């Protein structure tokens, strides 16, 4: 088995050239004069702050909406559970752009299009399945009779939930939050289509910097900031969540 280690060479070479190298080149661009100027500018950091806030709000909204759903699914009889899980997961595979477009047509009559509300709603809608799946997996893995054991030892229903169920499913909660927060932080198509000019996030800034041809260094700087936040989160996540598999 161990003599198959060299099989790693082609994929690692590919990823070095088309992942590590481009990220490094982008980072070096960010450290140019124009890039450093952007990194020092309060506008950049205000945008990072706004994007972080939007990502945080979306993540919390997904968690609050998703936990009861995951809980409910895990309590269903086997056959129905498969179906409902399928219904939750299917939109996750359906094209995000198409779903965002669908939301556009749905929200337009209500006159809330081109607002922050529409943008966050769209992001919530788009990434909710990313939250429900890890939550469901964590709740499913709870040892049987856990809630009963807690009640038996004197915990009220609320205490059962907050002292046992939530802490015991914490790995799923953390995984779900990371899986929602990171992509939302860099989102740009969804907020642009639903939030219009109002919902201007880091992703839109990057897109503008590169595609208008003006100041790509500032875009690289913003990309670097997003990458740094992502790597920091992933590092923290790995420390909390020691897993056996690749993910």
């Amino acid at each position, binding site marked *: 088995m161990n003599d198959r280690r060299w099989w790693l060479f082609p994929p690692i070479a590919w990823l070095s050239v*088309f992942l590590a190298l*481009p990220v490094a080149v982008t980072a070096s661009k960010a450290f140019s004069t124009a890039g450093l100027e952007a990194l020092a500018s309060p506008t950049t950091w205000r945008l990072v702050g706004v994007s972080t806030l939007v990502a945080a709000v979306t993540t919390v909204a997904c968690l609050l909406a998703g936990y*009861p759903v995951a809980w*409910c699914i895990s309590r269903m009889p086997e056959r129905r559970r498969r179906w409902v899980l399928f219904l939750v997961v*299917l939109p996750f595979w359906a094209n995000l*752009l198409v779903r965002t477009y669908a939301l556009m047509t749905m929200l337009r009559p209500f006159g809330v299009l081109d607002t922050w509300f529409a943008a966050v709603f769209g992001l919530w809608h788009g990434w909710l399945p990313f939250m429900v799946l890890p939550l469901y997996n964590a709740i499913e893995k709870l040892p049987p009779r856990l809630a009963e054991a807690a009640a038996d030892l004197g915990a009220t229903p609320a205490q059962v939930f907050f002292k046992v169920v939530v802490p015991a499913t914490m790995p799923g909660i953390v995984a779900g939050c990371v899986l929602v927060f990171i992509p939302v932080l860099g*989102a740009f198509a969804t907020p642009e289509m639903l939030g219009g000019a109002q919902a201007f996030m880091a992703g839109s800034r990057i897109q503008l910097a590169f595609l208008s041809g003006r100041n790509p260094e500032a875009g690289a700087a913003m990309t670097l900031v997003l990458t740094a936040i992502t790597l920091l989160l992933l590092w923290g996540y790995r420390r909390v969540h020691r897993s056996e598999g690749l993910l």
Partner: protein
Amino acid sequence: MSRLATTWTLGVLVLLWVPIVLLAAFSFNEARFATTFTAFTLDWYVRLFEDRELRGILVNTVVIAGGSAVLSTVLGTMAAMGLRGTFVGKRVAAALVTLPVMIPDIVLAISLLVLFRAGGVPLSLGTALIAHTTFNLAYVAIVVAARAESLDPSLEAAAMDLGCTPTRAWFKVTLPALAPAIASGALLSFTLSFDDFVITYFTTGPGDGTLPVKIFSMVRHGISPKVHALATLILAGSVVLIVLARALAGAPKEART
């Protein structure tokens, strides 16, 4: 308590599905700017198929999705095989392999764009193909590695014991055992490619757009039943692909039709 959770779940499911169902329904609506359903028509689909440019875009989409599926399946399977067991540097290698799944799409897209520009490589279908292969590789590796983990490590040893060379043992024993996961990984990467917008948007050349990119630009000119029809078709296509992938992966524990 549990009834509350059930009602809540039902509400969330409705919110998830209403826009999709509405979209599909209005793609069969005769009226152009209606918010009510007037009459059933297939007209928008007919117009869609008559659109020559769109046919070219469909070809682009399939070429990128198919090409990157093949490349990423080979590379991803190799990565999954190479990562088996423990060795020095495994954490770094595993982190590199899974990174494309974890970083925001826009970071990968922009980084590649910067690289291509710095190297003077003009954007084209080829550059998009490279970008798609990079992120699909990670998904294939994860799917195949998950399956390889449940594989009995003494399988290959048994085959070699019976007289196979190590390479023959892999092709005769391991590959067939992993085939469903590999096929599922290939379909998954086809689907992800097919659906991708952000990465394609930044790494493809002008005129080499894919269907999602086309929708994005069509939306800028306003909502129309023709876009509804195109979106519905893309949706149906992804659903078929994903159901197929799940059936192949033989994941009986999770959702299956």
